[in-house]
C-alpha cells in the first residue's frame, strides 16, 4: 500500500528523472512514465496512459516554444502532417479503450514492450544517424510538395550554412505519421520515434527539422487522445499532476545541462532502462 503523499512525491521525482534523461537523449521521457506507473506503482494501464499522455502535451509544448523561435521547426509541414497524426491518435485511443473493456489489456502491455525495444534500437541508431550528417536530404523539386508548400530551409548553426529541403514520398510519409499517431493514442506516449522516421527517412527532410517538427506535432496529437481519456474519466488529476509537472521540470533541467552534446553514458543508461522495462511490460502482459 502506498500513501497518496508518498505517491505524489515519489512520482514527481521519477518524472523529473524521466524528463532529464529523455531530453538529454532526444527522445521524450514520456515513454518511461507508463512503465513506471504500472510496474512501479501498480496503477491500471488505462489510468497510467491517461496520466502519461497529459505529460507529453507539456513536454512537447515547452520544447516547441523554443524551437519555433529558432525557425528550425517547419510549421506548414507540421500542421499538414497533424491531419494524419491526430486521426491516428483518435483511432489508437479508441482501440485501447476497446481492449481495456474487453479484458484484452495484455495486448497493450505486449505492444508497449515491443515499442520499448524498438525505441532502444532507435536511440542507438540515431547516434549513428547524427554522426552521418544530412547527406540524404532531398532538394529535388517535387510536384506535390510544391502544391502543399512542404519545403523550406533552415540555418544549421554547427555547419554555418543554410540547408534547403523539399519533402518527397509524401503519401508514404503521411501513412507512417498516421501510424505514429495511432501508437501515441494506443500507448499514451508521444510517438516521436515514428514521426521522425516518417519525416527523416521516408520524406527525406533534414534530421533536425524532423525532430523539432515531430516534437511540435506531439502536443496536438496528444491533445486529441487526452481529450477523449479526460472526458471518459481516465485522466485522474491526482495521478497525472506529479507526472505533468515533473517531466516539465526534468526537461528544462536536461535542456540546460546539455544543449548540443549527448554523452554516451546517458544514452547507454537510457537503453538499459528501456530494455528492462520492455521485458517487464511483456512479462506483465503474458497471462500467467
Amino acid at each position, binding site marked *: *500500500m*502506498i*500513501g*497518496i*503523499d508518498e*505517491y*505524489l*512525491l515519489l512520482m*514527481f521525482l521519477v518524472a523529473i528523472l524521466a524528463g532529464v534523461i529523455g531530453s538529454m537523449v532526444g527522445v521524450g521521457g514520456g515513454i518511461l512514465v507508463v512503465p513506471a506507473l504500472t510496474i512501479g*506503482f501498480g*496503477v*491500471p494501464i488505462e*489510468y497510467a496512459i491517461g496520466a502519461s499522455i*497529459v505529460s507529453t*502535451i*507539456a513536454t512537447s*509544448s*515547452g520544447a*516547441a*516554444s523554443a524551437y*519555433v*523561435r529558432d*525557425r528550425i521547426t517547419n*510549421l*506548414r509541414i507540421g*500542421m*499538414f502532417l*497533424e*491531419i494524419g497524426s*491526430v*486521426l491516428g491518435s*483518435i483511432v489508437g485511443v*479508441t482501440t485501447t*479503450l476497446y481492449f481495456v*473493456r474487453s479484458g484484452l489489456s495484455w495486448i497493450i502491455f505486449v505492444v508497449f514492450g515491443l515499442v520499448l525495444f524498438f525505441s532502444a534500437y532507435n536511440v542507438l541508431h540515431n547516434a549513428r544517424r547524427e554522426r552521418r550528417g544530412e547527406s540524404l536530404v532531398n532538394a529535388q523539386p517535387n510536384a506535390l510538395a510544391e502544391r502543399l*508548400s512542404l*519545403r*523550406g*530551409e533552415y540555418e544549421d548553426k554547427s555547419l554555418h550554412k543554410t540547408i534547403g529541403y523539399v519533402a518527397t514520398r509524401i503519401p508514404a510519409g503521411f501513412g507512417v505519421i498516421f501510424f505514429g499517431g495511432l501508437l501515441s493514442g494506443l500507448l499514451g506516449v508521444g510517438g516521436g520515434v515514428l514521426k521522425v522516421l516518417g519525416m527523416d527517412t521516408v520524406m527525406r527532410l533534414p534530421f533536425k527539422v524532423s525532430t523539432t517538427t515531430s516534437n511540435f506535432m506531439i*502536443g*496536438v496529437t496528444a*491533445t*486529441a*487522445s*487526452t*481529450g*477523449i481519456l*479526460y*472526458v*471518459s*474519466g481516465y*485522466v*485522474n*488529476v*491526482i495521478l*497525472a*499532476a*506529479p507526472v*505533468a*509537472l515533473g517531466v516539465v521540470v526534468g526537461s528544462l533541467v536536461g535542456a540546460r545541462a546539455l544543449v548540443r552534446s549527448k554523452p554516451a553514458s546517458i544514452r547507454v543508461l537510457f537503453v538499459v532502462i528501456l530494455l528492462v522495462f520492455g521485458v517487464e511490460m511483456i512479462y506483465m502482459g503474458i497471462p500467467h
Partner: protein
Amino acid sequence: MTTERPSADLNDAIGKILRYGVVLSSVAVAAGLALMLLAPPPGTPGTLQGAVAVNFGRPTLSPSALIAGVAHGSAVGVLQLGLLLLIATPITRVAASVLLFFRERDVLYVGVTLLVLVMLLFALFVVGPLESAGSGSG
C-alpha cells in the same frame, strides 16, 4: 520576403501561446500539488490503491462545479484547472494558426489547420462522451 518561410508573426505568436500555456498550467498544477500535500480535500483516500479504486481525482465535467472547486481552493479543482489549461494550449495554438494563415491569405493552410481544429473538437465533444457512455458507470 520569401514565401517558403512562414512570417515572423506566425512563429512568434505560436511560440508565445505554447510558452504561456505551459507556464500557466505548471503554476496551477504546482499550487494544486502543494494543496494536495498540505490540505487534502475531505474524503481523500489514504492510499494510492484506494484512490484508484474509486477514481478519486476524476475531473468533473461540469464547469460550475469546477469553478466552485477552484474558488474554494480545493486541491482537486486547482489540479483540474492546471490540466485543462494544458489541454487548451495546443487547441489555442491551432485556432490561432487558422487566423494567422487567414491573414496571410494562405487558403490551403486555413483549410488544413481548420481541419485539425475540427478533429480536436470532434475528439473532445463527440468521441469522448461516446466513450464515456460506453464505459457504463465510468
